[in-house]
């Protein structure tokens, strides 16, 4: 059995949290990993510098979509500044399974989109 596909991840993949778009969102950003076609879009509503609402849509592999789903739960209600602190390791820890090098970009696509949305940093998060 593939360790990678723990029930937790498959659950987020099958039942993504915060899935959808926000009309009149304060921030929207979309990006893709052209190597495998994974795509994630994040919409946010900001109140007092905090993420009042966050939604995502996307398509792609289970890892990319599950990690985007987990990420929205992690940052909902958080201060926008806290996103700067969020590291690749935080996401990898949340996924809770070893991610092989070839799949790391799948796992980090959501974070990349979030950081781009919040700060315009378009590099891949270091890990």
């Amino acid at each position, binding site marked *: 059995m593939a360790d*990678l*596909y723990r029930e937790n991840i498959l659950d987020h993949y099958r039942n993504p949290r915060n899935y959808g778009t926000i009309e009149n969102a304060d921030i929207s950003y979309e990006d893709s990993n052209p190597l*495998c*076609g994974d795509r994630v879009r994040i919409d946010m509503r900001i109140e007092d510098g905090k993420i009042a609402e966050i939604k995502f849509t996307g398509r792609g592999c*289970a890892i990319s979509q599950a990690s985007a789903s987990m990420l929205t739960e992690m940052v909902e209600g958080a201060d926008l500044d806290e996103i700067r602190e969020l590291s690749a390791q935080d996401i990898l820890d949340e996924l809770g399974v070893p991610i092989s090098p070839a799949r790391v970009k*799948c796992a980090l696509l959501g974070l990349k989109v979030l950081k781009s949305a919040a700060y315009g940093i378009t590099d891949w998060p270091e890990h």
Partner: protein
Amino acid sequence: MSTHTTTPPGTFDARQVKQDFPILQQTVHGKPLTYLDSAASSQKPLVVIEALDAYYRASNANIHRGVYWLSEHATALYDEAREKVARFINAPDPRSCVFVRNATEALNLVAYSWGRANLEPGDTVVLTLLEHHSNIVPWQIVTAERGATIRYVDIDHDGRLRLDQLDHYLRTERVKLVGVTHVANALGTINPVAEIAARAHAAGALVLVDGAQSVPHMPVDVQALDVDFLAFSGHKMLGPMGIGVLWGRREILEAMPPFLGGGDMIREVTTCGSTWADLPAKFEAGTPSVGDAVGLGAAIDYLTALGMDAVRAHEREIVAYALERLAQVPGVTLYGPTGEDRAGVVSFTLDDIHPHDIASILDSEGVAIRAGHHCAQPLMDRLGVVATARASFYVYNSEEDVDRLADALQTVRRIFGPGA
């Protein structure tokens, strides 16, 4: 090489062949390795590994011009490898077989050297939607620079080229070159290259064949095909990485300007300018990969001993078996033609599970396949998919490997749940 005594003449037993490949004796994640990614790169038999080893232990030197024994010896080995290549593709003259790094460099050489010297504004280069990026991107670069146009021949429902479109372009535009892959790496389609060459030549166009997926897998005869250029990679045909071949018609190669400049490709260099060496040196600037060429020669010997007809027959059988077995896995969609014009490559999807997820789970079962766009994004766009999973076969794969693939796909379905 192992002896193949129990199999009828002209065929071989893939399980015995596999014994010649040290890497395939490994286990991965505790499972026996089932290597189904030979279209990306093949594994190497012991004779090739040993040829490389022996080269560096006993024969290594820079070639040409060295008048000492070791250098003459290395030069002789390098020339011998070139002769083996020429015989393998039935090239009339070994000097028209240029050693390069890989098929990609060979295709770029044609685009840069022939293309930049011969394409005029308003000219057309015809490619196909089955091409690998290596036979697209260089032409995009060069046609943009020269003011020429690229046309892409579309495919029909089965993944076969629409030759009526080719005819249309040949009739209505000033086509200078038709670039076509002999075997499509993402679908396995074997294109009718001799037919395409006849039509292109009738219209005055040259024909460049990307043989990266054909030369390793079937008899390829440049004279019978009557084409103008053939590009292929050693690493996909049991040889080492770092060596590939561009064959071209001698008179065309002779008329082309050089590509890379440097040592050994010149006749004379002065501060005012330079003149070029004869073929093949003109296109082989700098120190070549002599050891890798020697390794390629050993790979050709190995393939020749198996017999290229037998290699093709084996792959025809195994792909037929694979298509049958995979069709039995619920949720599998198969791509590409299903006739005689199908090589040992099977692209598929499974429900709407992303191919990367498929490949990751297969990996945990020891089954190595490729997942992605296979460097054929225009084809993926045309098929309306982002990616496919792809299993590809070679001389060391047997029906057992196909069974392992099919079983592992059932595991994927179990993990993702039916209708996932």
